[in-house]
């Protein structure tokens, strides 16, 4: 995997994905190792995403790498009209690997094709966000002891949520049973369902969150994103349909964990936070270990 870009989760085979998770486990044991002291990591955030950027920068810093970059287009030469290609070619002179977030779909694939150094996609528009998928897989495996044969419930905006799309596709490698809870207008798109059907896996669709709580091994909550709706009335109709409260978890499995890619608005009540079944903040921490594993692997020190 040395010098390989990671644009889409499918760029890595199942074995390569699992290898990243194994290496991430080692970093969880020993998070501070100065193995990237000779490297410069560039974090190019053409649109702000504080959480993802800090997670990458924390991962790089804990491994001793130096970090350069920008956190919005306004503070880069993009605001002067520079093309993405020119920005990438310039920054690749200054760094050994580029982590990028960009508002346009497909921007990361294009950058990986013009860049002489490897590119890690930290989100390209509504398209892919593979490091989120890997940290979700890591969190599921860590809490359930396996990725195989689980009942995974996805709740909320299944139509526009790219996190759900990528994770669903990755999970089709592990004989998952899918429980899909959404308003009728925000159902999982057919092209994602086709991946599930192609593997002869089972999926069930619901509109009522309570139905999936007793059967789920993982309850994956998502935010209904206001910015995806062109019609504000449509958003008002669906924004508060799913709100997980602590009392609703009474009939859930003892081993269930509640995940959320964060930030949450009101999908999960704060009274869930103290329940040991809540796992979303540890999930965010796992992102650092997974990103350490990716940086170390792609830069060839692991």
């Amino acid at each position: 995997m040395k010098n390989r870009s990671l644009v889409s989760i499918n760029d890595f085979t199942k074995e390569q994905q699992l290898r990243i998770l194994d290496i991430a486990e080692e970093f969880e044991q020993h998070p501070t190792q100065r193995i990237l002291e000779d490297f410069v990591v560039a974090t190019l955030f053409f649109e702000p995403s504080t959480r993802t950027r800090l997670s990458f920068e924390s991962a790089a810093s804990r491994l001793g790498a130096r970090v350069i970059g920008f956190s919005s287009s306004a503070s880069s030469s993009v605001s002067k009209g520079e093309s993405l290609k020119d920005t990438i070619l310039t920054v690749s002179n200054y760094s050994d690997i580029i982590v990028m977030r960009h508002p346009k779909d497909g921007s990361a694939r294009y950058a990986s094709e013009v860049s002489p150094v490897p590119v890690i996609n930290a989100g390209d528009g509504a398209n892919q966000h593979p490091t989120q998928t890997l940290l979700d897989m890591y969190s599921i495996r860590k809490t359930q002891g396996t990725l195989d044969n689980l009942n995974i419930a996805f709740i909320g905006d299944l139509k526009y949520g790219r996190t759900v799309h990528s994770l669903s596709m990755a999970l089709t490698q592990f004989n998952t049973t899918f429980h899909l809870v959404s308003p009728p207008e925000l159902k999982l798109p057919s092209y994602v369902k086709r991946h599930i059907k192609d593997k002869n896996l089972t999926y069930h669709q619901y509109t009522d969150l309570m139905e999936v709580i007793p059967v789920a091994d993982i309850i994956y909550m998502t935010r209904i994103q206001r910015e995806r709706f062109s019609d504000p009335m449509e958003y008002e109709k669906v924004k508060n349909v799913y709100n997980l409260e602590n009392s609703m978890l009474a009939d859930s499995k003892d081993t269930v964990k509640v995940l959320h890619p964060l930030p949450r608005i009101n999908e999960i009540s704060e009274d869930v936070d103290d329940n040991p079944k809540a796992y979303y903040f540890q999930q965010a921490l796992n992102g650092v270990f997974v990103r350490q594993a990716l940086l170390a692997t792609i830069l060839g020190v692991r």
Partner: protein
Amino acid sequence: MENEQRKELKVTAIASGTVIDHIPAQNVFQVIKILGLDRSKEMVLFGTYLDSRKYGKKGIIKVSNTFFESDEINKIALVAPSATLIVIKDYKVASKSKVQIPDVVNNIVKCFNPNCITNAEAVPTKFDVIRDEEVLKLRCHYCEKTTMKDDMVFF
């Protein structure tokens, strides 16, 4: 037979070159554009909405002294999958073939996704051709979104 003869009268025979027959009647101008015939310095004859026994209505294009590589001609399969390619030498049919739908389509169609990087920067488009239950779709190499046949816009 009568229809066929009348068509021949409408679009005269060429001495040497290529005839592209059985083009869907409404797509003749797209084929001309895709093959760059609008910039050709050779004689180009074409007809639209000609009677066809097989297709009802059809289009035809005849280009003098021009012969196409299969890569080039297969680009038109997106708009004219039923097209027949006839190579003419000395007023005679030298060969006949069908166009083949290619596996990849480079830089002839715009991506339908307005948020795709190819619509924001000078990136040549690139698609994988997907045949899903006989329906032809293009999957963008960059944004991974699908452009349906009716949404295809040619450069």
